[in-house]
């Protein structure tokens, strides 16, 4: 009997708020977080009669940079388009976005095991205002604040290449890292400067049969309003389970939009009318098209630092660094830059890189030593120092402990400062040659055994 399993087919949509000073189409500041409502607006982003958009050069540059770092092709000719729909937080009744000729197309990302995941497109658009629902008196109202209206937003859409939740999480984390590396955004999930949406369906595949035709399923469910990486994982797991159960029963999964309830760990339907939305796109007449020449793109390419996934490969392969240390360095660009300096300088010191990484991570020595060279010097000294042997420590410690039974009682009863006194006494006996940590560990073990 043939056995089947259901393989997830997942595509992602990531929205990233750019960290430009100015909004996308007007001179308002793009800093909108936690300020009084409607104090960061102008005729343009407020959609007043007669206002016209004027694009932000820096936003376009950041989008191109981001696209190049994900190996996208940059369209030589690109334009903005109007996307029409009515909603109270959309001040013009249309959003200026990009439809058929986005700035970036056809890129990819590689996972740590070199699996390739294709990026369909990356484009620029403007953000909407914010709505909150509140009860005033006995009625419910929607309160609208346009401070966020017009902030530059980058939208990244992947092909539905993901079938493993771990890859999805690794990818979105790298998107966040890339944003920070390129200084295009802080990509903060909590602040809403990075937002995630996932499209999920399941494909029926015969177990064990290789090289099956990778057809796309005939439906997809859109998961929205996921505001943390943790919830993304749980939401995907919950939805995959839900769809698997339905398909196993021989039923069809309804194509719809769903949200995730973190309390029940279930996805729920946000069913809106099922007809495809008609956005009536047409080219934005108020903004001339944007052309990019190869020369320009080449110059921008030189401005792009090493991306996290490249660095990850290098640390793993060339340095043999532990995965957890790698991720710690990747997360923090400053620390990463520090470590790169160490790599350069270490050619002269010849210390073990894993050892150095360990010292930095566990003892925050990069904070202690502002200069990487000084850190290397300090570690070299440490290494060359001759410590008292374990046997010498044992002898010194045993004799001190014997002489201080009352102190030990006090220590056991909670007087922690006694520990310092004991360590000091032992170190004195050793003429300062004891490794403090080793001494402490010996005392702690001795106490436990007693």
């Amino acid at each position, binding site marked *: 009997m043939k056995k089947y399993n259901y393989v997830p087919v997942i595509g992602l949509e990531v929205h990233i708020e750019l960290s430009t000073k*100015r909004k996308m189409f007007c001179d308002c500041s793009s800093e909108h977080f936690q300020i009084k409502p409607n*104090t960061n607006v102008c005729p343009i982003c*407020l959609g007043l009669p007669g206002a016209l958009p004027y694009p932000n050069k820096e936003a376009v540059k950041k989008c191109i940079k981001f696209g190049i770092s994900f190996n996208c092709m940059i369209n030589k000719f690109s334009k903005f388009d109007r996307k029409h729909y*009515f909603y109270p937080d959309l001040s013009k009744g249309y959003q200026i976005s990009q439809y058929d000729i986005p700035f970036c197309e056809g890129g990819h990302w590689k996972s740590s095991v070199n699996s390739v995941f294709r990026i369909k497109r990356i484009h620029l658009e403007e953000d909407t205002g914010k709505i909150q629902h509140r009860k005033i008196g006995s009625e*419910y*109202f929607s*309160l609208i604040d346009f401070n966020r209206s017009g902030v530059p937003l980058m939208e990244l859409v992947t092909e539905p290449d993901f079938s493993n939740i771990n890859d999805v999480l690794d990818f979105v984390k790298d998107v966040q890292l890339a944003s920070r590396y390129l200084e295009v955004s802080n990509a903060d999930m909590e602040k809403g400067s990075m937002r995630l949406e996932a499209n999920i369906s399941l494909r029926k595949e015969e177990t064990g049969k290789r090289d099956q035709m990778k057809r796309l399923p005939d439906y997809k469910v859109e998961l929205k309003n996921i505001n943390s990486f943790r919830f993304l994982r749980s939401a995907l797991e919950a939805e995959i389970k839900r769809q698997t159960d339905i398909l196993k029963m021989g039923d069809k999964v309804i194509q719809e939009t769903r949200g995730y309830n973190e309390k029940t760990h279930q996805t729920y339907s946000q069913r809106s009318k099922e007809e495809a939305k008609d956005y009536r796109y047409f*080219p934005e007449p108020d903004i001339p098209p944007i052309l990019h020449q190869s020369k320009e793109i080449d110059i921008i390419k030189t401005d792009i630092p090493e991306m996290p996934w490249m660095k990850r490969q290098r640390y793993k392969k060339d340095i043999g660094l532990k995965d957890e240390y790698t991720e710690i360095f990747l997360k923090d660009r400053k620390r990463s830059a520090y470590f790169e300096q160490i790599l350069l300088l270490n050619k002269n010191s010849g210390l073990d890189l894993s050892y150095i990484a360990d010292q930095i991570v566990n003892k925050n020595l990069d904070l202690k030593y502002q200069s990487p060279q000084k850190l290397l010097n300090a570690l070299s000294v440490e290494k060359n120092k001759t410590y008292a042997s374990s046997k010498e420590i044992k002898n010194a410690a045993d004799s001190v402990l014997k002489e201080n039974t009352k102190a030990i009682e006090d220590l056991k009863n909670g007087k922690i400062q006694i520990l310092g006194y004991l360590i000091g006494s032992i170190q004195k006996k050793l003429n300062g040659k004891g490794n403090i940590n080793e001494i402490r560990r010996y005392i702690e073990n001795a106490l436990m055994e007693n």
Partner: protein
Amino acid sequence: MIKIKHSEIVHLADLAQIKINKKEIQKLSLQLSKIVDYVSELNDVDTKNAVPTNQTTGLTNVTNDDLTSISLKQEDAVGQSKNIYQGFFKVPITIKNKII
């Protein structure tokens, strides 16, 4: 003769958030059908080699530098609305992308 059905008129009114009554549906169906029928004469024009014109200026790459300037004061921003609440614009609760 191109005929725009009543159901299409209703759908268009919905898309455009325009309220129309039965009489208007009838009238618009007739009028719009006539106009659309007239403009369909464009099908007679050979546009095989024509690139669509959406702007006549021929301009490209018009952008502004990443500099900010002063925004409106809150009272000016919300002052033209009849429904405000503590600096917010206030509308009845939205359901399904439509205001009730």
